[in-house]
């Protein structure tokens, strides 16, 4: 009987800890246990045998850290270690009815954005282990003790794409119910189940008692077999040694409880030995296997945030260039900050999910989509809806997205369904189905329903769960097709009732071409919600739309005890009067001097009514900045005060820029500067301070971020015709990369000058690595740039 068959109707007993057994025979913390597969293989074989004797049906190879990064200094290759480890396991099995699991633990370095390792490099690290494991003949791949969902995804994809073996997966949670990196058990289940592992669960960190609430959470949500490998209690330090307190019989009792609740794959982690496994294997014999129910739960997530579509959820529509000049400009220039601001403000306004559309003919959609998603998920935990009609873009986006996403969209056309649905399935996403096909949008509700039915059927045939299909019955414009507006809502009712799927709808289209659009939008939204709309796609910055949703949630009992409603509106009348009282009397100079960012916008708008943009800059902004800068240099104010003023100027500038973009009357920017923190270095707060200051003085900054390769810097310098590059490095170990970048830059862009800064540098040091200018602080980078461009 193969493992997969056994999984269908029985329990599978795994082994216990390898490390603990090795430490009992003298292995020290910090030593690589994997080396013993070759140097002391009998020791490993004996441990495997003990577990097999104790009743383990699967034994785990001694390869937890057998990746190229952890083995780097060991002198042994990944392939040698894994091959030896699998041979040892097979030798221990020696004809018995048992299986070998290829053990894969975390890489040991953090992935971006938390660390510096890229997703694709992590994938390659895992791929190398998996390819060898398959070659050496393992029966199952065990990816375990993960703490970062992104790394887990890289490992699972590597396993899926390089083998046909079953994949078992576990993560380690803290008592808080989250991993070290913040991933929740729910987010884990939703994401890795979607990626198509064969079993998932929890191991390590906690003992079986502390684990219980998390196990319950996992069992409640999982549609696939659940695996549990607890420690023998919470480790405690006794006389400098780690000890585990739970006895084998207490351990087995807890495992029995998990098995009765529905866990299927049982074993142990740190502190457990063959004694624990023996009792587990005995106690399991008398337990009846519990069937796994199929739970239909509509949801999306990131590692730290799960959004269940169990009530109305708002999808923010603002990340979309259609009809937005500034957004298009930002996309063309690669100005991610602009796009990030759109993301942040939508989340602040109450969006639960963000739609991301970067389709613009002049740009590389695939590359931009990846950049935007990476940028959003590096600072926000909001789940995303990937909006593109290009399957390649969708696949690339789903690959690097961290969590469970929605794909927007497919429609009733066979070609699109057959191209996109397999990708949706592979990455475990949800999908939006538009009720249109090659003939366009049908007029009648019944015809739209038919298309919806087809999409659902097709999606299910690809293995996509009905709970992951969201049907969009498409809003029509009242100005053009007034009669059909109602058909959308009729179709929505049909879809909800007969297909039992969730629905999504872009709302604001209804009012196009008519006056007082907000009124039509609100009214249509309310009607659609009452009909059963689950996911309105709206502009969350439009408070009146959010108001309708907040009110609806009260009336439809989705906001229990009106808690949210009361929270949002209890102070509304007082606030109006308060803000009226607060009306400022500061002029722009004072606003900048005091760093009152909130007032910069309105004051600048007021000035724009009577003065030219350039005059505002020269007569108000620059004098204020110079005044503040002077105070900073004299030591009358300190850095946070200077930055507050600079940020205030920045928001004044953005108003002026909007005005100029509209009238395109003049160019205010003083010169283009590239800023980057060099390869290997991820300390970029200093660089970001420089950026804020330079921008406040009117320079255009192309911010390449941190950990930037010299190739990228050159490429961008040439592409944007940049004459001045600012580099930052904060570690003695990364200054060499700075020097390297400067040499490369001088070779390839001889006209380009370089200014450098960072804690470990000084004037002499900067000169010695070939820099043209050294800025001792952010303010000085401004003086250098002003001289350079004057």
């Amino acid at each position, binding site marked *: 009987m193969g493992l997969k068959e056994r999984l269908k109707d029985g329990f599978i007993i795994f082994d216990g800890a390898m490390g603990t057994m090795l430490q009992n025979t003298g292995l*020290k*913390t*910090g*030593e690589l246990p994997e080396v013993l597969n070759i140097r002391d293989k009998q020791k490993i074989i004996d441990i495997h045998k003990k577990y097999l004797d104790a009743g383990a049906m699967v034994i785990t190879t001694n390869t937890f850290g057998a990746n190229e*990064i952890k083995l780097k200094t060991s002198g042994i290759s990944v392939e040698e270690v894994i091959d030896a480890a699998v041979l040892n396991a097979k030798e221990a099995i020696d004809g018995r009815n048992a299986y070998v699991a290829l053990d894969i633990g*975390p890489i*040991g*370095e*953090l992935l971006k*954005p*938390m*660390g*510096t*390792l890229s997703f694709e490099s992590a994938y390659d690290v895992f791929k190398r282990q998996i390819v060898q494991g398959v070659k050496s003949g393992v029966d199952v791949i065990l990816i375990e*003790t993960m*703490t970062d969902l992104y790394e887990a995804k890289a490992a699972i994809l590597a396993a899926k794409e390089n083998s046909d073996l079953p994949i078992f997966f576990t993560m380690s949670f803290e008592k808080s119910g989250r*991993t*070290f*990196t*913040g991933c929740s058990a729910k987010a884990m289940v939703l994401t890795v189940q979607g990626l198509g592992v064969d079993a998932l669960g929890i191991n*390590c960190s906690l003992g079986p008692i502390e684990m219980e609430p998390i196990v319950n959470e996992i069992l409640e949500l999982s549609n696939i077999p659940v695996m549990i490998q607890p420690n023998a209690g919470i480790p405690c330090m006794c*006389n*400098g040694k780690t000890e585990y307190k739970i006895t084998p019989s207490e351990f087995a009792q807890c495992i029995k409880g998990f098995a009765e609740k529905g866990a299927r794959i049982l074993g142990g982690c740190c502190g457990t030995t063959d004694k624990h496994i023996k009792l587990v294997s005995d106690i399991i014999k008398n337990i009846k296997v519990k069937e796994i129910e199929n739970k239909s739960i509509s949801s999306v997530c990131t590692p730290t945030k799960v959004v269940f579509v169990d009530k109305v959820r708002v999808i923010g529509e603002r990340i979309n260039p259609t009809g937005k000049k500034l957004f298009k400009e930002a996309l063309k220039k690669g100005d991610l*900050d602009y796009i*990030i*601001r759109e993301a*942040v403000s939508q989340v602040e306004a109450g969006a639960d999910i963000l739609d991301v559309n970067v389709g613009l003919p002049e740009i590389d959609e695939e590359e931009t989509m990846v950049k935007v998603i990476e940028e959003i998920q*590096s*600072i926000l935990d909001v789940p995303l809806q990937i909006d593109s009609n290009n399957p390649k873009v969708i696949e690339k986006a789903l690959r690097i997205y961290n969590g469970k996403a929605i794909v927007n969209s497919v429609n009733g056309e066979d070609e699109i369904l057959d191209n996109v649905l397999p990708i949706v399935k592979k990455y475990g996403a949800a999908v939006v189905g538009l009720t249109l096909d090659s003939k366009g949008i049908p007029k009648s509700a019944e015809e739209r329903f038919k298309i919806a039915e087809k999409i659902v059927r097709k999606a299910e045939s690809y293995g996509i769960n009905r709970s992951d299909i969201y049907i969009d019955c498409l809003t029509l414009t009242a100005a053009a097709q007034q009669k059909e507006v109602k058909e959308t809502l009729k179709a929505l009712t049909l879809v909800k009732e007969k297909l039992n799927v969730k629905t999504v709808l872009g709302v604001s289209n209804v009012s196009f071409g008519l006056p007082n659009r907000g009124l039509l939008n609100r009214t249509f939204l309310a009607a659609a919600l009452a009909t059963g709309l689950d996911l309105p796609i709206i502009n969350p910055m439009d408070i009146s739309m959010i108001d309708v949703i907040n009110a609806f949630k009260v009336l439809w009992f989705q906001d229990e005890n009106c808690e949210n409603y009361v929270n949002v509106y209890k102070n509304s009348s007082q606030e109006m009067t308060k803000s009226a009282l607060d009306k400022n009397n500061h002029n722009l100079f004072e606003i900048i001097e*005091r*760093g*009152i960012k909130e007032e910069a916008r309105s004051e600048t708008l007021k000035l724009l009514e009577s003065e030219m943009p350039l005059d505002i800059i020269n007569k108000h902004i620059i004098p204020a900045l110079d005044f503040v800068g002077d105070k900073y240099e004299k*030591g*009358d*104010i*300190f*850095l*946070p*005060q200077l*930055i*507050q003023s*600079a*940020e205030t100027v920045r928001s004044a500038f953005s108003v002026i820029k909007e005005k100029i973009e509209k009238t395109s009357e003049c160019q205010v920017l003083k010169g283009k500067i590239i800023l980057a923190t060099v390869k*290997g270095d*991820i*300390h*970029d*707060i200093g660089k*970001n*301070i420089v950026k*804020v200051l330079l921008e406040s003085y009117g320079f255009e900054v192309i911010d390449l971020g941190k950990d930037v390769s010299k190739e990228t810097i050159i490429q961008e310098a040439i592409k944007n015709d940049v004459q001045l590059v600012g580099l930052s490095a904060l*570690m*003695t*170990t*990364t200054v060499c990369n700075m020097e390297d970048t400067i040499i490369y830059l001088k070779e390839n862009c001889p006209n380009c000058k370089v200014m450098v800064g960072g*804690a*470990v540098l*000084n004037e002499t040091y900067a000169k010695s690595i070939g820099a043209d200018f050294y800025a*001792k*602080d952010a303010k000085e980078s401004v003086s250098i740039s002003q001289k350079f461009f004057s």
Partner: protein
Amino acid sequence: MDTIDIDKKEVLRYLGYKNQILDYKTDKLIENCIFEIQKLAEPKYIYSLFKVTGRENTISLDNGLIELKGNAISNHLRNSEDCVLLAVTLGNFIDTKIRYYEKTDMTRALILDACATAYVEQVCDMVCNLIKKEDILKNKSLTYRFSPGYGDLPLDIQKSFLGVLAAEKNIGLTASSNNILLPRKSVTAVIGVVEGNCKHNAKSCLNCNKNRDCMYKKEV
């Protein structure tokens, strides 16, 4: 771990404060940030005691897995038979939040960063007080914390340092390929155990090679 107070004076020092007028707005912002860091931080620590074996420019520890090279560390441990290796981290959430503010509110990012730096040092102080209470350290005291990268102690021991403490598994602390500790607000340090009271070996800016041009220098 209970929340630990953050010393505002230290935060101000990390912000380069030199007795300027602290306006109400900035002052409030700093207090807000102190509060926010205490909510965001998930302080975790791990330490272990080792016998010091080698001398003369290279210190070896009795587990044979790590060598501490350089004059500075030899000097630091010159009176110690034992030493403690310590690793402390505040966790990932702070890093994410600082990244967030760098995009939305740079002033706040700057102050939050300074608060986190002050906080991690204070967590280290707290842990050192716990270590002092260990039975084996009766009638002994601890030197100040000496970290990889100080003086001539190379930074590239970071990975093996974390390895001997199993810091990745125990507290989620890792080092990048360039030996940067991640999560960012983390500390690794070697602490010497000395007989009796130890006063001669206090940490001082005078021993630092950035002494001449450091904006964070403590005024004596």
